[in-house]
């Protein structure tokens, strides 16, 4: 089943077209990574999919439910109540974590669940389970400012997972981390991939993307320039693609 389906997504900022009609669908259990140079529209695409940005054109579906569709050249979004339901199907991990600094690690993970309607006990149990899995159980009473960047990012992954989303988006999850801390976050994502979590990952970590993805998408200037399995993309004879991947591999 297609969990996420984006059709012909277009987005302008100040008259400049950032996304020029992107279509992307992701099946259950699939791991898709989106790569491309800065300014290619990767993050904007992700933000449109998560409805942090409104699309200027195109349609958006989650598990068959329509979140947005284009009608007479205008995008109309589903009602507030419908969107609230649809939002439960996905989670997002931010580049800058965006943990709530005034909450303890535990409360960061429990409160969203309580807001979603779980009891305090259920939320507590689930939060501890998720934090345990991510090796953070000894940090639950700490505050985000006391944690390293890698730990903070793991808390934010736990926070997203606790809500049991069907699909998880990652917006450059390691770009704010130094190389030493990048590894621990990538390991978590790798483990999730092994569990067949559906994920869409915007990343600059080329080797990681190659290893973890079922499918890779190379974006440039607001369009999908190439799409396929990691083998296909890395074996591509597209000059532009080769030079981009070559540079990122440090050659």
């Amino acid at each position: 089943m297609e969990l996420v389906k984006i059709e012909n997504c277009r987005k302008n900022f100040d008259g400049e077209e950032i996304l020029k009609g992107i279509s992307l669908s992701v099946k259950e259990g699939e791991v898709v990574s989106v790569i491309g140079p800065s300014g290619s529209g990767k993050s904007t695409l992700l933000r449109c999919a998560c409805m942090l940005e409104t699309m200027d054109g195109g349609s958006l579906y989650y598990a068959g439910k329509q979140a947005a569709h284009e009608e007479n050249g205008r995008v109309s979004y589903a009602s507030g109540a419908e969107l609230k339901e649809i939002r439960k199907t996905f989670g997002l991990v931010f580049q800058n974590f965006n943990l709530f600094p005034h909450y303890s690690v535990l409360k960061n993970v429990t409160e969203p669940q309580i807001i979603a309607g779980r009891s305090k006990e259920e939320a507590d149990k689930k939060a501890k389970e998720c934090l345990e899995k991510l090796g953070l159980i000894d940090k639950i009473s700490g505050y985000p400012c006391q944690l390293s960047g890698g730990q903070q990012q793991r808390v934010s992954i736990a926070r997203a997972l606790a809500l049991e989303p069907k699909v998880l988006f990652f917006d450059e999850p390691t770009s704010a981390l130094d190389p030493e801390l990048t590894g621990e976050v990538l390991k978590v994502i790798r483990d999730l991939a092994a569990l067949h979590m559906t994920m869409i990952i915007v990343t600059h970590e080329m080797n990681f993307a190659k290893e973890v993805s079922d499918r890779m998408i190379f974006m440039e200037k607001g369009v999908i320039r190439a799409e396929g399995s990691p083998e296909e993309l890395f074996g591509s004879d597209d000059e532009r693609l080769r030079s981009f991947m070559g540079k990122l591999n440090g050659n």
Partner: protein
Amino acid sequence: MPLNVVLEKLMGGMGVTVSIFLLTLLFSIPLGLPLSLARMSKNKVLSVISGIYISVMRGTPLMLQIIVIYFLPFYGFGINVTSGYRFVAVIIAFSLNYAAYFAEIYRSGIQSIPKGQYEAAQILGYSRVQTFIRIVMPQMFKRVLPAMTNEIITLVKDTSLSFAIATAEMFTMAKQIAAKEASLAPLMAAGVFYYVFNLLVAHVCKRVEKHYDYYRI
């Protein structure tokens, strides 16, 4: 007049000063919040009206505002006020004036909350009201504490402006005694009182700030 009599009289005024101070905080601190929200509202009418209100309150002397609010019922509507209204007028004027300052402080605090906090809350299913109350407001409060301390210290000294309508607060009393006795001593004593009061205020504010040190933004 012996010193102990002077101090006794000043003491009576001190109670009024402290009441003005506490009641003003009690009303203006909450009142500033809807005012700052109105100021930031997308609704043009709301934001323009609150903008004008804040501009007038900050741009005209507080003493003038006290006098206008005290005399408005009589000169404006022909209502005879009782002597108790004097104190009420002072509280109204101070609360309305300080709410304007607090509103602007809150606005700076709210606008300094990173966009990512709102986005995370949206993704996690928080409603707009839940986002404001649970995520934005507590962080805003921590951020504005130093600016609030400043304003609260100013308020302690500003209470003396209510001498303009002869409220029986400390400065009014000190001035009366000083005139009668042809001595600066009562005014100096009042000065010491304001200073000590503010030391106390600064200490309490510092404690509150320290209490919120357990997290960094």
